[in-house]
């Protein structure tokens, strides 16, 4: 048993938790922590803005499948992480954010760089703490990591007053915490599983709908087995891309507002919908009353609040996706519930018809089409890159034209839709997976929200690639203005932007620019093959829209098509 300072205790717990990287930014009240951090072998990535630190921790957590950690100072340092926390909260990503705080004696006095960050972040964290005594540090930090990674994962913030990190206390390593008031349900209810099997047995036109929960629980293998057993088509939410192979014959493509025609039509026609690790967000359901109108619904999720929140379900199954799916697979086998290709023939013929009549498509002209850039990127990387995105049209084209084969390869701010996410998330993913190719698919608007992180990439020699689909508009809003506001492009014209290729060079990265279709492939080749970070600026068709599109509030089957 040793007596350590608070800062030393923090490092000891981080080591216990297996933390190897922290994304951070120093400030007055966290000098003690940074001082100790520098004495450990934990890598510190100095970002250029605290929002970048939070998103980088998010990207790191997703690529690695672990917890991301972020360390910032009090006041503005803490408030700058709020968007990152909110994004991680919506997407259920486990990150632990350590914020400095003014000394306990000064709390409430409007001290310099004081802010009630625990109050501010209460609604956008899974849980948060203000540590008031050095003695509590070990317990609180252990609980923070435990809460972040268990159950439905999420961000946890720990606020650390300066005197708590300077004070001394005995350090005793604690076992994994057991909390009376926090006990997620992993094991699904056997009777509900049986009810699900009974529905599956009768279904003629089933659809499996997979979400981020499948990736978070590491259930992709079980999902594939399940889909094979049912011989059912599979669709996914934006967060679920990669949970099922994107080139599989059973794959329908993404569901929802910019989902494929066949996926949305299949939801309209199916008689059984099996939602796994999803939360039936409004971008997926469209008009709730018209969602899967002929279907019984089975919903598997670890968070009971997700079930019957937006869509009433027939069979609710609260539990871990992986556990639930392996038990369902076992029950199907035991009870000899089998389906043949022949059983499903009419259903797949119908799907094929939808696929043929309205495939994803665009017209190649003499300007660069953004879809073409993503398609070429997919081909040249053989679908093996980790793709992060910004938010808007770039995000949707990435989702539509990059066919994800594996989980943890598509990193996007799904629920919050946080512009500026992609570059710092790519940095986090690159730190987690140094040997992978990491590409941020960006728009010219959102890349400018955290472009300063290019300096971080250059400093740490992180070879992230940024593909900018540059239409000199805030494209997604412009698309809505074109379609629903009679082309009144209020505040969406963004012609005043820097030359991104020159900007990249100013940061010490490689900068490339392409304005013609024939330049796309050579530019991608040069950028992807270069050893360091690179920005590839593609000047694309200014008024290209993302199709299909389900207008807000319309039914999924009421799509606008090209």
């Amino acid at each position, binding site marked *: 048993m040793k007596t350590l300072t608070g800062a030393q205790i923090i490092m000891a717990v981080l080591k216990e938790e297996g933390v190897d990287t922290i994304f951070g930014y120093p400030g007055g009240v966290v000098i003690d922590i940074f001082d100790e951090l520098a004495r450990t072998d934990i890598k510190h990535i100095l970002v250029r803005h605290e929002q970048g630190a939070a998103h980088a921790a998010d990207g790191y957590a997703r690529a690695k499948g672990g917890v991301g950690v972020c360390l910032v100072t009090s006041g503005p340092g803490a408030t700058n992480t709020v968007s990152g926390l909110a994004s991680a909260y919506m997407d259920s990503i486990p990150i632990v954010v350590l914020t400095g705080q003014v000394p306990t004696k000064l709390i409430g006095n409007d001290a310099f760089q004081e802010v009630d960050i*625990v*109050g501010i972040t*209460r*609604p956008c964290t*899974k*849980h948060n703490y*203000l540590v008031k005594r050095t003695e509590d540090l070990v317990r609180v930090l252990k609980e923070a990591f435990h*809460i972040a990674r268990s*159950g*439905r994962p999420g961000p946890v913030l720990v606020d650390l007053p300066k005197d708590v990190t300077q004070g001394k206390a005995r350090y005793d390593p604690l076992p994994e915490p057991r*909390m*009376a*008031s*926090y*006990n*997620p*349900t992993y094991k699904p209810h056997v009777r509900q599983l049986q009810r699900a099997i009974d529905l599956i047995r009768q279904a003629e036109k089933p659809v499996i709908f997979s979400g981020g929960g499948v990736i978070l629980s590491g259930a992709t293998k079980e999902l594939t087995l399940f889909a094979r057993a049912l011989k059912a088509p599979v669709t996914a939410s934006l967060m679920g891309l990669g949970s099922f192979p994107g080139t599989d014959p059973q794959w329908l493509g993404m569901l929802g507002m910019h989902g494929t025609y066949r996926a949305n039509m299949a939801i309209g026609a199916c008689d059984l919908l099996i939602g796994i690790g999803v939360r039936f967000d409004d971008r997926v359901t469209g008009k709730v009353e018209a969602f899967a109108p002929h279907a019984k619904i089975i919903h598997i999720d*670890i*968070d*009971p*609040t997700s079930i*019957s*929140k937006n869509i*009433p379900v027939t069979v609710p199954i*609260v539990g871990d996706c992986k556990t639930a799916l392996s038990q369902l697979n076992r029950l199907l086998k035991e009870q000899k519930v089998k389906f043949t290709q022949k059983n499903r023939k009419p259903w797949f013929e119908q799907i094929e018809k939808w696929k043929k009549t309205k495939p994803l498509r665009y017209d190649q002209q003499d300007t660069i089409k953004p879809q073409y850039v993503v398609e070429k990127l997919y081909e040249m990387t053989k679908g093996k890159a980790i793709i992060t995105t910004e938010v808007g049209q770039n995000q949707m084209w990435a989702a539509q034209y990059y066919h994800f084969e594996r989980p943890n390869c598509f990193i996007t701010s799904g629920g919050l839709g946080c512009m500026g996410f992609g570059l710092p998330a790519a940095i986090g993913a690159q730190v987690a997976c140094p040997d992978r190719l990491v590409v941020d698919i960006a728009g010219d608007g959102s890349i400018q929200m955290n472009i300063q992180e290019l300096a971080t990439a250059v400093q740490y020699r992180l070879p992230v690639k940024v593909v900018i689909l540059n239409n000199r508009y805030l494209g997604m809003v412009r698309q809505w203005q074109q379609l629903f506001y009679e082309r009144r492009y209020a505040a969406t014209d963004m012609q005043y932007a820097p030359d991104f290729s020159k900007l990249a060079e100013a940061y010490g990265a490689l900068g490339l620019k392409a304005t013609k279709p024939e330049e796309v492939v050579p530019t991608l080749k040069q950028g992807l093959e270069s050893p360091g970070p690179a920005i590839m600026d593609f000047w694309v068709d200014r008024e290209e829209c993302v199709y299909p599109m389900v207008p807000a509030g319309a039914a999924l089957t009421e799509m606008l098509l090209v």
Partner: protein
Amino acid sequence: MKKHTISLLVDNEPGVLSRVVGLFSGRGFNIESLCVAETLDPSTSRITLVTLGDDAIAEQIKKQLNKLINVIKLYDLTGTEFVNREMALIKVRAQSEHRAEILRIVDIFRCKVVDVGPDHYTIEVTGTADKLAAILGLLKPMGVKEIARTGAIALSREGRHKKSQGGGPNS
């Protein structure tokens, strides 16, 4: 729309009430009334809250409350046998012609006069919301100067609670 009386055992820590209340305001749920105090175990508090909503909303409220890390247990008393009390202090104008009448009402409702002045009585009344409404209805014509009242507090009748349905453990 139905009234739901929910009893919560929570960690007795700073910020816990704020998490509960913030959840209601953030998600647009209703709070009709709310009472909080420490239990026999100083590390836990009991929150009794009354909320309004249809069954789906009540279900969602319970699940969301259960999901809060600091909520140890949740009981939905609605539809079960439970004892339910509110308390009010009513300062009523007491002119000489009304003094006897007020005291009769106090007697009938088994209330207490806890403060007397030359032209007022302060009455302490406990009971259900209906009883409080009834006595207020009678006292109003005399002139109620001020009123302070608590929300409902409630306990199940059988010494064991019916566990909330579908509230489920948190995640």
